[in-house]
């Protein structure tokens, strides 16, 4: 009894569907079909069961039909043939009204480009689904505010989307889905437009949320690391067909065919874990302006014993330790320049994790990630090891 079940679902874009389907059966390529019939096969004979409470990831190259497949689930795209079940209800031929009810009560969607309504405030955006359902004003405001609070964005509720950063906007997109409180959430490359650090934070938040709320999440991504990190099961698509479904472990150790193997290697080679994937936001001190008192205060607040020193332009200069800062403060000296240390290892964002491992285990300090002189992040031993373990990446590399 899957939460979502699709059976032999096919979507052909264009008029000449039957002709196109005939050609698919003859194993003609997509380009050839397009040339001969002017129709595109978006999804072909896809069958899947997605269980309640799982994060189901769909992967595949660009144009393989991921977006089409996820839009078939809430019928933003109408299937050419096949059946779609949500909670055992066949929604394939529901009329407009019943379909609206299913969309309102069963599923919410999060989009790659956020798709926030620009003329609505953050709060009004978060309220949208509830408003559409006709929930009374007061009630929906409370629910939306709660969702924003969980996303850490309550103080921005009266701002407009274009006043927020990309990461914040996508948190609003997620809050809009969560405020609606549906059991299914559809996410089409929801994190792809975000930079690596934010992206990682969002993945963590999604996992935490999943642990608390037990939603059924369908998640599309291009990124194998992301898929392995958050996915309970992964489906791999090629030219509109689903060619393998399994846990990350299964797919890595037992690729269904040569295509999957080379797909994983391809993705892998370009997406091997690098410093960029494992780094966290650095605790910094602006050495031109800030003195030992500020430094000590910040260390206390963030519970760290080292701060990375930067200048106005975030150029990396070195680091200072809590002990030095304390002595300096006692002596009444204002400038931190005298206690600046320079022996912290530095790596580029593109350095692969395996190389960093030896550096980091020899170093008493964290490792700074620096790009063209600018500080990008910091690597901490625990986080690096954890990311290595959870990415299950080593297995593939060592094959």
């Amino acid at each position, binding site marked *: 009894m899957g939460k979502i079940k699709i059976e032999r679902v096919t979507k052909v874009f264009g008029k000449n569907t039957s002709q196109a389907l005939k050609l698919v059966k003859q194993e003609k390529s997509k380009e050839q079909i397009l040339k001969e019939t002017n129709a595109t096969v978006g999804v072909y004979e896809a069958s899947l069961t997605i269980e309640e409470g799982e994060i189901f990831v769909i992967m595949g190259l660009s144009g393989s039909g991921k977006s089409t497949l996820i839009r078939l689930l809430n019928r*933003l795209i109408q299937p050419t043939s096949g059946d779609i079940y949500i909670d055992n209800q066949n929604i394939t031929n529901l009329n407009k009204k019943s379909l*609206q009810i299913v969309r*309102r009560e069963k599923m919410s*969607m999060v989009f790659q480009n956020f798709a926030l309504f620009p*003329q609505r405030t953050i709060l009004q955006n978060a309220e949208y689904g509830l*408003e*559409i359902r006709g929930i009374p004003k007061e009630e929906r405001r409370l629910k939306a505010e709660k969702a924003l609070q969980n996303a850490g964005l309550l103080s921005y509720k009266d701002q*407009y989307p274009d006043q927020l950063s990309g990461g914040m906007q996508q948190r609003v997109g997620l809050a809009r889905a969560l405020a609606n409180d549906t059991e299914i959430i559809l996410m089409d490359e929801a994190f792809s437009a975000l930079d690596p650090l934010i992206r990682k934070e969002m993945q963590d938040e999604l996992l935490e949320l999943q642990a608390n709320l037990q939603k059924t999440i369908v998640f599309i991504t291009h990124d194998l690391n992301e898929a392995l990190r958050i996915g309970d099961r992964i489906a791999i698509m090629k030219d509109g067909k689903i060619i393998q479904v399994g846990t990350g472990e299964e797919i890595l150790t037992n690729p269904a065919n040569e295509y999957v193997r080379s797909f994983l290697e391809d993705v892998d080679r370009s997406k091997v874990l690098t410093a960029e994937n494992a780094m966290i936001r650095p605790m910094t001190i602006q050495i031109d302006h800030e003195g030992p008192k500020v430094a000590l205060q910040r260390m206390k607040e963030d519970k760290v014993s080292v701060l990375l020193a930067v200048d106005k332009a975030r150029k990396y200069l070195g680091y200072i330790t809590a002990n030095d800062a304390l002595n300096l403060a006692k002596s009444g000296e204002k400038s931190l320049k005298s206690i600046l240390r320079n022996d912290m290892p530095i790596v580029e964002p593109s350095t692969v994790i395996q190389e960093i491992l030896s550096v980091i285990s020899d170093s008493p300090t964290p490792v700074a990630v620096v790009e063209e002189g600018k500080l990008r992040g910091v690597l901490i031993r625990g986080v690096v090891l954890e990311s290595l373990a959870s990415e299950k990446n080593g297995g593939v590399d060592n094959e």
Partner: protein
Amino acid sequence: MSKLLNLATPIPVAENVEKLMDIVTDTFSSQFRFIQNNGADLMDFVTSTLTSIPPYVFMLIVAVLAFFATGKKFGLAIFSILGLLFILNQGLWDQLMNTFTLVMFSSLIAIIIGIPLGILMSKSKVVEEILKPILDFMQTMPGFVYLIPAVAFFGIGVVPGVFASVIFALPPTVRFTNLGIRQVPKHLIEAADSYGSTFTQKLLKVELPLSKATIMAGINQTVLLSLSMVVIASMIGAPGLGREVLSALQRAQIGNGFVAGISLVIFAIIVDRLTQSLNKDKSNGGK
């Protein structure tokens, strides 16, 4: 060859159009009369109400409106007061009020018809394909031509003037409404759909708010076009500044014609800037 010769005998287009007009006029004559009488009464009432407002009070209202609509700037407000003072000074105040009523009615009717038509057009390819050439036709046809059916249906006076103006001024509102709605990004439509919005919810909560600036630009053009019909409509007896221009023209009174013309221009500038700044104001406030 014989085909070519055939082309020489004219097809009776003019006759047929005339016949059609006669049929329409006959069939709907009582309705037309009803509209003519009541429309004229209503507009007379509005004009006399406007005229009964003391000019200085009227100017003050316009100035205050201009001040706030332009974001608390004095420019347009001062221009409005000076311009209206000039018109008053030239003894054209009553004519101005007549013109104001005419423009207001034609624009309002054009907007009330135009926006729903534009919405329909944006929702249906078929409707778009049908309406597009008709709108082109309406816009390229010289405004004078609309006087003919206007007179046939309603006789002379202010109502046929409004009728002709509405037809002439309608296209921009329809076009811009269509354009505005079609320009709403696809992913926002998807978002609205994915949360189960009905047709009306999507229209009112997403499409219209997002195309407001474009629609307002169309409305601005509609208002200006209906204003440009004022002189033409005066040829069939619509009162107002247009009639002053026309009679000056007929009697070759350059001076009078100039004064009436300038008054029209002043009025046009005030109306244009006011509608435009309303648009800007809204789109900034609710970005």
